[in-house]
């Protein structure tokens, strides 16, 4: 069992028996992924029947998606901050019984990876349903998009959305995780908030 496996051993148990905040983070990641998916779908798919009005409407939608992503990023920072603050005592205990700072950081990193993965599964299920509805609704305007390789492009959009949601989640985690890694075990164990 190497260090990563040891981190995963603990992270898996923490994640399975996770708190409400973990589920909130998961939902935020899913919403983020869907917003990114919508953004990339618009970028990748052809828009042959654009009128000026439609183009303007789609640009506005794109702007709303970006605002949504930015707000989600801030929400994720707050959620991760709350999660790490809530685990201040636990992390102090781990440090007290021998965990190195890198172990604490890795633990939070791996747990966030699990959150992102579950958020993506949630987003994929929701996204498939929404995409199906969207394609059916748009078919009268754009024709049969499947024939234009839309499926491959949608898949690419999904992968890009996955990567973007992952990066956003990791960036949101960075500051709270670095902050909690610096705690002194003695003060964490004796300040019972």
């Amino acid at each position: 069992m190497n260090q990563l496996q040891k981190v995963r051993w603990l992270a898996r148990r923490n994640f399975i028996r996770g708190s409400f905040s973990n589920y909130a983070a998961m939902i935020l990641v899913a919403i983020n992924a869907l917003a990114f998916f919508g953004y990339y779908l618009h970028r990748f798919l052809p828009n042959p029947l654009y009128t000026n009005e439609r183009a303007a409407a789609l640009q506005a939608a794109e702007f709303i998606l970006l605002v949504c992503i930015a707000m989600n990023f801030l929400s994720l920072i707050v959620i991760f901050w709350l999660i790490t603050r809530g685990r201040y005592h636990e992390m102090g205990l781990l440090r007290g019984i021998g965990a190195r700072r890198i172990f604490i950081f890795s633990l939070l990193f791996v747990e966030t990876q699990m959150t992102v993965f579950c958020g993506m599964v949630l987003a994929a299920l929701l996204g498939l349903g929404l995409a199906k509805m969207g394609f059916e609704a748009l078919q009268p305007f754009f024709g049969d998009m499947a024939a234009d390789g839309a499926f491959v492009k949608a898949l690419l959009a999904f992968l890009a959305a996955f990567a973007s949601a992952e990066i956003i989640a990791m960036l949101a985690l960075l500051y709270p995780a670095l902050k909690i890694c610096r705690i002194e075990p003695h003060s964490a164990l004796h300040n019972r908030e």
Partner: protein
Amino acid sequence: MIAKVINVTKVYGSGQARTEALKGVSLDINEGDYIGIMGASGSGKTTLLSIIGCLIKPSDGEVYFDKRRVRDISDIELSRLRGREIGFVFQFTDLLGNLTVLENVLVPVLFHDGQIAEKKKYAVQLLEKLGLGYTLNTRVRALSGGERQRVAIARSLINRPRILLADEPTGDLDDAASERIMALFSSVSAAGTTIVFVTHNKAFVKYASNVYEMGDGRIQRILK
């Protein structure tokens, strides 16, 4: 000598919030010692234990662990020391609420070279010895205060530490359970592990080979 504390002071806070928890404490801890530290609340017992266990560094004075000056040891090396050489039983029986009893006992193995699978048998043995064989897969949230304390003790012993530091190890236990814990500590001590425990219960003085009484941040008396 396993640890040496030389004229240590420890100050928390500054200005009006300044508290001097230790005021020039010196203590030698030799391999195999069984030391009891007694004293009223706020006398500096827990701070002294934390300093011996390398959880905090003193404001002044020197601490040596295994002939190495703690001030010069890096954070990574201190973590290694805490994980491998020192076993802790903290005052508030801190356990990880998401884990089962057995998993909690195995957590220190994560910071040690040992493997979880190899240590599982020893963890079960320790828990059975402490009368917790029936709770192995129970979440610690479901345990009573006394049971939690015993889990914390099993966890502190899992890596076979050279020194065991216990802060009020019998705090939440009834008399019978307390006697059982102290008897276990005696057997651990007989096996060669150095033990330093903090207590306010004079009844447990009989177990220790050296007993110090603390008051006002100083060692006031050597009782034994």
